[in-house]
Each structure stands twice: as C-alpha cells, then as structure tokens.
C-alpha cells in the first residue's frame, strides 16, 4: 500500500499538503519519490539510519536517568521542505533580527541610549538574570556579542512564521542538522537525485571563518579552540563534532591557563597561546574568579584576559540579557529603534506578568495560555494551560504572583505539522524550526536549520528532553 494514502492533514497548517488535500507545489517531486517507495523498504532504510546514529554515537544523555542511558535523538526520514521564496523571507528576517540584537547588546553595555529613551523600561534590563553590569564599557571585536544565534521559529495556522525565542548564549543542535543530512543521504540516496536541495556543508567553515574574524591577533594565524564543560555534558557529541569539522582543539577548563592576562593551553610541548574561544560553558561557570567561585569547569583569570582584549569569546559574555523571554517582547521595538525598519518576522504576542494589565489577563486566562519562566530552556519551567492539571495551574499562579518579572505568557500557537512516521503509519506531527545564524564578517545562515518534531500525537513540545525528534530540512534552489 502506498504510504500517503491514508494521510490526513487535519485542521492544521500542513507543510506538505494544502487544506483541500492537494500537495503543495514545492513538495510535489518529493511526494512522487515517496510514492515509489514501498513500506518495507522504507522501514528497512529508516532502521538503517537509526543504526547509523547509534554507531556514530550521536546520542544524548538523559539527565535524571541513573543508568546513564544514551539515547539517539529520534530521526524521522520524511524531510521538511521549504521553497526558495519562503527561505529568503526567513533569511532576511533573521538577519535583521541578529543585527538589531547585537546593536542592543552593544548599547546596553555602553551608553544605554535605548533605556534613556525609555523604549525599553530600564527595570527589565537591570533585573534580567543574565545581565552583566560589570562588563559595561568592555569592548568586543567588531562590537559583535551574539556570534551564533539559534532563534526558534514556528508557523501558525495562518501559515505565517513567528519567532518564538532567540537563543543567544550557547545554542546547540547544529551537529544534528548536519548529521541528519548525512543520515538521510546514506539511507535514501535516491530521494535527493535532482531535487535541487541546497547543501548545508558550509556550516563548520562559516563558523571557523567567524572565529578567525574576531581574533584579537592580527600578526599570526589565530589559534581557536572549543571550550567544553566535559564529556558528561549532554551536548559533548556536538562539541567534538564541530571541533573536528573545524579542525580545532576541543579543550576543557583544566587545559587552559592564564598567565599575565594571556590564555594558553597545556600541550605536550609546553604552553601554546590561544586567541579565540568558542565556548560552550555558561557565563556563570566560565571563570571562578569573577563568577561562581565553586566552578571547576572554568578557567581562573579568563575574564582578565578577555577584558584586556587578549582573547575573544564566542558568544561574548552577557548575551543572556537579550534572550531573556521578557526582553524578547521588545525585539520588534529594537528593530524599529536601531534600524528604523519594520520587523520582517513577527513575535508571538506576549504578556508580561510585571505589567498590571497583562498580569490581570494572564491570571484570568491561565487554562488557555502558555506560561514560561523567563530564563529556562529545553522545555523546562513551562505551563501548557490547555493540557495542565488544576494543581499545576494553581502552582504556576503562585509562582507568577511571587516573581512576576520572571514570567511571561503567550497564546497557544497551533504549530504547523509535517508528515511523520509514527506507530506504523504516516501522520501529522507538530514541528518548529531552529536556524543557526552566524555573525562574523557578515551574516551567514546555513540553508534551513534543524526541524524539531513533537512525536507524541497532538503535543506541541518539540524538545528532545521531552520526547521530541528531528527531521532533515530541505531548502530548494531557485
């Protein structure tokens, strides 16, 4: 039987089919290919791709799981396809956004004009958990703070894309994007054929070019390293993967020493100077002299070297103020304020619990809203009103009242769906999109991004820690 025969797009925006059941034009060639596959063949290839992930060790550790089990990040072989028009629109919107976010960060850590002009209430910035006032006045190369941004995009029932959040500290997942493509190419080589899918290979190169661009040293080839918290971090696979693809060393805090405000790594032939650190450790842990005293992962004295301009960090210190979910609400205003442009990509409407009117609305509509803590990620610290129990709602009500600065609420957006293999058949599952934006000499966005999919029926939560999987993302050439 042909696999799409009983597929029902349902009452949602389906990425492959229009509401009348006909295939979207840019997906038609893919659908034709899939119709030539029989189910047994499909399943055997799917199993092959899973084995590939397991053997490659492309797994993540599930925290709070005592057995230390490693799981593969479930991979669905039906790709998500985007037309060239769609992608160019997203690209323009994301570029506009990362430029504005960086102008905002530079401003906040220097003159604070945007606060003086009361475009954003000062209170929100100063109370942001990841704001680092001690770094005001510190210059960074090219005035770039967020070098790598992973903004989450969703598509509503109206077919329009919205930005759900900006991840501007240490966004992860780019390695999955690259490996998904590898896995799909291996398992379904014939799917690609002459479909005109844009390559994603350039990501590590773009990343390395950016690291070179921000080097403080001009007289020699910069030495770049990737700083990892260590092999027990759930993203360690990714750290290794990216370091290898870029051909740079992956270091732990203990591998680095700071002498006279310069950073060095310990090698078998003595100390070697380091110029750029792609760090995958949070600000809090990066230097026990300045931040958490008990950190054993960081490098004592690193901030001294950073302040002196002897070493560059990607991303810079203090970017967390820009991806605070309250500050997110003001990103469209930043775009207008700094660039004098209308935002190309919309935000999801957001209610701030510290605004009196909003608070009233939030407390009155909890069962209909999504509530989020301002600084959590990975699907933690969230209330999905419509599916929450009375107790959970009561619990969040208390939390919001106790700490309004740190809560926001948004209407439930019915994410678009994509055909996904679940429980022995293809059926619609909700997806989002995490593109990776690199900002160095210029803004580079690898075509597409990581499409995450909520494998549980009707679930809107796509995070891997909550049972999400991923898909390959195809951007078609013009």
């Amino acid at each position, binding site marked *: 039987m042909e696999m799409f025969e009983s597929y029902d797009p349902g009452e949602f925006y389906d990425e492959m089919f229009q509401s009348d059941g006909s295939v979207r034009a840019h997906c038609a060639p893919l659908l034709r290919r899939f119709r030539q596959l029989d189910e047994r063949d499909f399943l055997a290839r799917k199993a092959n791709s899973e084995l590939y992930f397991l053997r*490659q060790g492309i797994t993540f550790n599930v925290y709070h799981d005592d057995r230390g089990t490693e799981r593969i990040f479930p991979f669905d072989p039906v790709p998500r396809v985007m037309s060239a028009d769609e992608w160019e629109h997203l690209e323009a919107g994301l570029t506009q956004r990362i430029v504005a976010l960086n102008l905002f960060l530079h401003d906040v850590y220097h003159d604070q004009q945007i606060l003086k002009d009361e475009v954003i209430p000062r209170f929100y910035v100063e109370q942001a958990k990841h704001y680092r006032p001690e770094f005001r006045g510190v210059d960074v190369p090219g005035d770039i703070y967020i070098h790598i941004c992973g903004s989450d995009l969703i598509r509503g029932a109206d077919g329009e894309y919205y930005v759900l959040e900006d991840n501007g500290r240490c966004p992860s997942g780019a390695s999955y994007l690259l490996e998904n493509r590898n896995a799909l190419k291996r398992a379904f080589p014939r799917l690609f054929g002459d479909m005109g899918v844009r390559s994603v290979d350039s990501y590590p190169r773009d990343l390395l070019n950016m690291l070179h661009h921000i080097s403080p040293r001009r007289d020699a080839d910069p030495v770049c390293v990737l700083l990892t918290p260590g092999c027990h971090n759930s*993203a360690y696979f990714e750290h290794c993967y990216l370091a290898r693809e870029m051909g740079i060393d992956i*270091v732990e805090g203990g591998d680095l020493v700071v002498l006279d405000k310069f950073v060095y790594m310990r090698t078998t032939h003595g100390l070697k100077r380091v110029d750029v650190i792609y760090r995958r450790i949070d600000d809090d842990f990066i230097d026990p002299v300045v931040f958490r005293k008990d950190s054993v992962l960081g490098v004592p004295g690193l901030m001294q070297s950073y302040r002196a301009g002897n070493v560059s960090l990607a991303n810079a210190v203090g970017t967390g103020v820009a991806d605070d979910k309250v500050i997110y609400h003001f990103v469209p205003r930043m775009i207008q304020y700094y660039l004098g442009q209308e935002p190309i990509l919309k935000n999801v409407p957001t209610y701030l619990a510290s605004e009196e009117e909003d608070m009233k609305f939030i407390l009155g509509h909890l069962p209909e809203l999504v509530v989020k803590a301002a600084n959590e990620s990975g699907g933690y610290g969230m209330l999905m009103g419509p599916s929450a129990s009375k107790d959970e709602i009561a619990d969040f009500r208390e939390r919001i009242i106790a700490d309004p600065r740190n809560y926001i609420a948004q209407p439930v957006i019915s994410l678009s769906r994509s055909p996904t293999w679940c429980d022995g058949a293809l059926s619609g599952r909700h997806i989002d999109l995490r593109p990776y934006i690199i900002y160095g000499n210029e803004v580079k966005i690898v075509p597409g991004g990581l499409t995450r999919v909520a494998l549980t029926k009707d679930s809107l939560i796509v995070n891997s820690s909550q049972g999400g999987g991923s898909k390959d993302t195809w951007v078609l050439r013009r």
Partner: protein
Amino acid sequence: MLSRVANTFYWMARYVERADNLARLIDVNQQLLLDSERLDSDRLRGFWQPIILSAGDEETFNSIYDEAGSAEVIHFLTDDPRNPNSITSCIGLARENARTVRDQLSDELWEEMNSLYLFTRSEEATLLISSDPARFYQKIRRSAETFLGIAASTISRNEAWEFMDLGRHLERADKTTRFIDVTSYLPGGSEGMQSSSPGILHWSAILRSCGALGAFRSVKRGFDARGVFDFLVFSKDFPRSVLFCIEAVDTALHRISGTPRGTFSNEAERETGRLLSDLNFGSTEDAFCIGLHPYLDSLQARFNRIGEAIFESYVLMPERIQVSPVGDSRSPSAIALWQMQQQQQQ
C-alpha cells in the same frame, strides 16, 4: 597536542590492549580446563587462583566472592561491572576515553570502538558468555585487533599515535610478565614446573595466552621453562616480548621529544633507556638466579615507574606550571559531573 588528549590516547590504547589480553588469557585457560580431568572444588580453586593473582585483582575478587569456582572467576574477569579490570569494564573505559577524543578519531575507528562497546552491553554478549564463551572472547579479540588495524591505517604518525603506542606496549609488556608469572603461583611454584607433564601444558597455555605458540615453535624446539621464558622476555622479534615492547616504548618516547635515542631529556626516557639496556644485556640465566617471581615483579615495578614518569613529564608538567590540571577526566568528581550537566542546552 593537548596534554590531556595525549593522556587520553595513552589510556584508550591501554584499555583496549588490556581487554584483548584478558580475553586471550581466559579463553586459553578455559580450554586448558577442558583438557584436564574433572577437578574437585579445591583443585579448581588451585587452577584459577594464579590467574586472578596474575591479573593483580585478588583483593577485589575476595571482597566480592566467597567461592573461586570457574563460573565466579570467569564472570569476575569477563563482565563483572564491580571489577574495574574486567573485559567489559576495560572496554567501557576505553570507549569513554575514545569519546573524549572523538574529534580526533576517524569515523571508522570510533565506530569500531563504539560497536565493541555496544556489543559488550548487549544481550547477545550475555548469551554468548554463557553458551559459547570461546566465541565471545574471539569476538573481543577480533574487534580489538580490528581497532588496532584501523588505527594503524587511519591515524597520522603524530603524537596521538606515539602516545597510543606507549600505552599499548607498556600494557603488553606488563601483561606478558603477568602471564608468565602465573606459573609462580601454581602449587609447587615455578621450580616444580620445569618439564613435568602439567608443566608443558601450562607453558604452552602461556604461549597461547600471548598468541605466541606458532612463533615460538618456529624458533625453538620443545617446551621448557627457560625456552619459553627466554622467548617471551628477550625475543627481539616477537611483538609481545618484553624486550620488543620496551624497545617500542623507547622509540615512541624519543619520537615525541625529538631527542636522539641513547640519550634522554626527561625521567620517562631515562627510566626506559635503563630498562632497555638491562634487557639488552640481561639473560634468562640471570632471571632464574634471582628467581622468576622476584624478577618479573621488579620488571612490573619498572613499567609502573615509566608510566608515572610519562604522566609527570607530559601531563602534569610540574616544573612549568604551578596550577595542577583539574582532576582525572575518567572519574570526575560529583561536583564536576553536576556542573557539566548544569550548562544550559539552549
């Protein structure tokens, strides 16, 4: 190369080598047991005891088991997670080290390591251990050899390779001496084992444990203690002999430092050079004069000193930096573990 990474390569190779050697040791002795008449439990204990002793894990064993029957010993050495030196534990540690330097391994090499790891954790492995142990050990050895083969054909001859070479050859030298030492623990000690018939069985078992039976036969006739000992310690050509291994360690150390052989630039080179000269100018006669066990014991102590000196010269670097590197990455503290996990995954 990063000091920590060098150390990781060294241990990855050591653990693979250890697992490989153990697999051979158990397999050979299990087969040897098939050749003997039925043993009562006392004699069975007498059979396995030397093997546990030679693995250097007697204390751990006694703290876990009351009995020393075949089943207990085999489980202990093969897949007991409580024994940090069981085959399964060694593979786990080797893989953990490999994972840490995943970025520097070829895909094939990592896949081989990871597949072996996944195999040791599979139901298939559990089943094989009880139903067809010989095939289990064969699979471990094959995979370890494949690992080595892939490493040899995919790793550049840079420091990564040299540190793997160090780890592999030190481990090999150590295990060869321990396999010979099995005879010291046999009832009656090594003296009684000269050429009486159980002695021949044992000496040929030791040769097989070292994968040396064929090579030995091609150069020596008949099994006697001196002949086997001479071959396994002083052969210049056999890749598991002590001399051969220490020669390889010496070569690797000088490739790393760039100083000519015959001279030294650090403690590791000095210790190794000395040992090498003792082996080059030593003989089986000397060893038998000193006594087999004390002689082997002193070799093992010198291997350990070389290992420590390598660590001090290349990883600790105490003379260059005051701050010592953060703990052992193979067993991070609970605090470090917790902190690693705290890093937000956005």
